[in-house]
């Protein structure tokens, strides 16, 4: 692992809890790595597996998805549906040997600023250890 490798990380967060967590983090002056790119969606249940794949194939080194804790979803069941989709995507990536551990799914509540900053930093470290996503450099994707 080279020291100057800065992974490109897409952080999918729902507009209720996930982004709320990032607001709380900013209110508490918590920092997270600058190479983590927040991507706001209405609900994690609205993320199509295709969004994740497109990010994954076209240049992201890792993907984190943060929605509300179970039972807290603004739309009642979006986070449960998202969990099924993530399970499915992970299974596809795993069976093809594309690195299912480059996708993380972790609940972050509105008030959990530290948990948000921690997740971003921890995932960044995790991807740094894994190295760059081999697909992003390939021209034939």
């Amino acid at each position: 692992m080279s020291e100057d490798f800065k992974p490109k990380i897409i952080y999918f967060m729902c507009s209720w809890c996930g982004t709320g967590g990032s607001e709380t983090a900013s209110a508490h002056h918590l920092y997270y790595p600058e190479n983590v790119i927040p991507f706001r969606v209405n609900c994690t249940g609205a993320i199509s597996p295709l969004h994740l794949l497109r990010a994954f194939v076209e240049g992201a080194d890792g993907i984190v998805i943060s929605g509300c804790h179970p039972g807290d979803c603004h739309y009642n069941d979006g986070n449960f549906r998202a969990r099924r989709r993530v399970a499915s995507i992970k299974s596809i990536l795993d069976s093809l040997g594309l690195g299912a551990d480059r996708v993380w799914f972790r609940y972050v509540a509105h008030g959990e600023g530290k948990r948000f900053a921690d997740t971003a930093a921890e995932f960044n470290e995790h991807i740094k250890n894994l190295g760059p996503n081999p697909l992003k450099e390939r021209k034939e994707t």
Partner: protein
Amino acid sequence: MKGTTLPVEKDLNQTLIDFLKKGLESGGFDAVLLPSRVPSGDSFAYLLIKNPSLLEEATPLPPVMPVQGAKAVSSLTQYGKTNQKILAAMRPCEIRAATELSKLKQAELENILFLSLDCPGALPLSDYLENPREKDKVFQEALENRKTESMRPVCQVCREFSTTTGDLHVGRWGAEKGRVFLISSSEQGKKIQETMGNQGDQSVDSWESKVKELKEQRLQERAQFHEDLKTKAGGPDKLLEFFNQCINCHNCMRACPVCYCRQCYFDSEAFDLPVDDFLKRAKKKGSLRLPTDTLLFQLGRMSHMVHSCVSCGTCEDACPMDIPVAQLFSLVADQTQKLFQYSPGRNREEPLPFSVYKEEEFHEVETPYRKTYSKGEGKNA
């Protein structure tokens, strides 16, 4: 399950035709949907037959599968259910795909009865088209000797070759010489047998035990096949090599029975991008292969239909570049369907994996939180 036996005098095709004719004449059903040889003799298409005398030209068990039967059923019922009883004679994978389409509201199966059969597999379409006459003989021989070597690779490791999801099932395994079983696998199937005056309550234990035995053997072969494929196509480099010849024609998507989107995302404007976008990507990667997004198409299609994939092999037949897509899809489908404890086409009432959820499940995908990670407030983590 219970059933009766039918005599096989000339060949299996003729037995099936005689049975369908009798059913059509006695009013067991009002029309028959089944494959027939096209006039030029080198391919097969589905025919909806009302006139019993035209059944003579039909081939209920064709050597190849140019059109997946579920597509025929879907196009037949796109405006709703039929009022007449239609008996569709198909391979088990076609019936299972039709069941999946009914869950996706793209086929209406009320009043459609299915006649399945112990499938011997299908020959690769491109092989068949090279020499139809010769290949007809190969298929007939394989059917008689119960061999699968000449069949498509996905057929050779098919585990659902005798799945009875329809109403009637023609069983070849475990039958006496010169006879086949006709098994009623639903109430409606029983009714048809009654209407036709068949003694439908004979035991089919010998068929059941033989199928069980064969299935166990196939499951082992399938596991080994997938294991080998994983070493051949697993990982980014090998996977890209696997799809290297893809010309992005989307034939696999069009031929696939369970590729259900009315408008494919990959045919949509999401991929009509200004040239600057491509240049940006080319700069990032050094160069960019055109047409773009071939791997994304395959993975994206997979993410959409992998729960419903019945491993019928139609995508592989449709591929002009002979990429063994169906084999790879069956590998991913097996693993993903197992995860969701879902089997496509098993039951019409079983909901699709993405249409339901449970509160307590898949906790293994939730990455556990380690509390003491960041270095505290105000410091760069």
